[in-house]
């Protein structure tokens, strides 16, 4: 069980990294009018076969060999379903995988979104070989962080160098604040 949804995102995005993705798109949408919080994680990794896809929501299925239980996807699914939300995975071998979890925003059992910026910052600075596109939408406002744009400007300066890492942190915080006005999701 994860104490905040941003930790589920970090965990599930690591599946995309293990699947050999070089582009991961993460979208967080808060729509108060519809009372929904929707989290999408889409990658261009190796994808899954129909058989794997059927098993991936089962805790006793994992591709890893260090232990026999894989709880990442089941945790995320449980977090969504326990709010009366929905959970869906679409995957095609050789194309990639998309995970979509929708939560009822006001449901008492919905875990807090938590520190999404920390999750995105961790993913970017620890996986500099991968490109990330992160979109945060709050009602009608939104912002996007696209590491490909950053890379174009930075040339050879690595995304995990101290100055750039600090910039990414500030970029996320300032833009999130402007987008949601500090609303606690």
């Amino acid at each position, binding site marked *: 069980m994860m104490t905040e949804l941003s930790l589920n995102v970090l*965990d599930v995005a690591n599946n995309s990294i293990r699947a050999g993705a070089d582009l991961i798109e993460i979208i967080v949408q808060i729509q108060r009018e519809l009372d929904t919080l929707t989290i999408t994680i889409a990658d261009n990794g190796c994808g899954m076969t129909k058989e794997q896809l059927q098993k991936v929501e089962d805790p006793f299925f994992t591709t890893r060999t*260090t232990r026999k239980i894989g709880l990442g996807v089941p945790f995320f699914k449980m977090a969504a379903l326990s709010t009366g939300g929905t959970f869906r995975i679409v995957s095609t071998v050789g194309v990639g995988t998309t995970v979509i979890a929708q939560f009822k925003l006001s449901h008492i059992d919905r875990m807090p979104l938590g520190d999404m910026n920390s999750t995105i910052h961790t993913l970017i600075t620890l996986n500099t070989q991968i490109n990330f596109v992160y979109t945060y939408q709050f009602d009608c406002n939104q912002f996007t962080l696209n590491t490909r744009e950053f890379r174009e400007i930075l040339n050879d300066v690595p995304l995990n160098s101290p100055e750039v890492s600090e910039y990414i942190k500030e970029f996320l915080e*300032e833009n999130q604040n402007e987008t949601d006005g500090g609303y606690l999701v």
Partner: protein
Amino acid sequence: MKSLEELKAIREKMQGQIGIRSESSDQTRVIVGMATCGIASGARPVLTALSDAIQTKGLTNVSVTQTGCIGLCQYEPIVEVLEPGKDKVTYVKMTPEKALEVVEQHLIHGQAVKKYTISEILG
């Protein structure tokens, strides 16, 4: 909205220094377990504390990376320190506070914090 102009300024400032920062053989590696078990036990704040402290202390010879599950889920968050020419040190049940001690005593002063190592905790 934070501007991309700032990023350009960073590039211009840093481009000259890149050669100096390149990987060398005396690089110390700090590895944090970031599988489901690690994340659920609190690995993300531990990792953030480590990266921030290493950055503010200017430890350019230390790099932080992540790994998956190493099969010791009950001891997560786990942090491994690999110094060239020395045995690997494995810290278990870490917290951001313990991580700062490790930065100060182990990474800066070269003394492993024995009380947090797996050999000490397993007895």
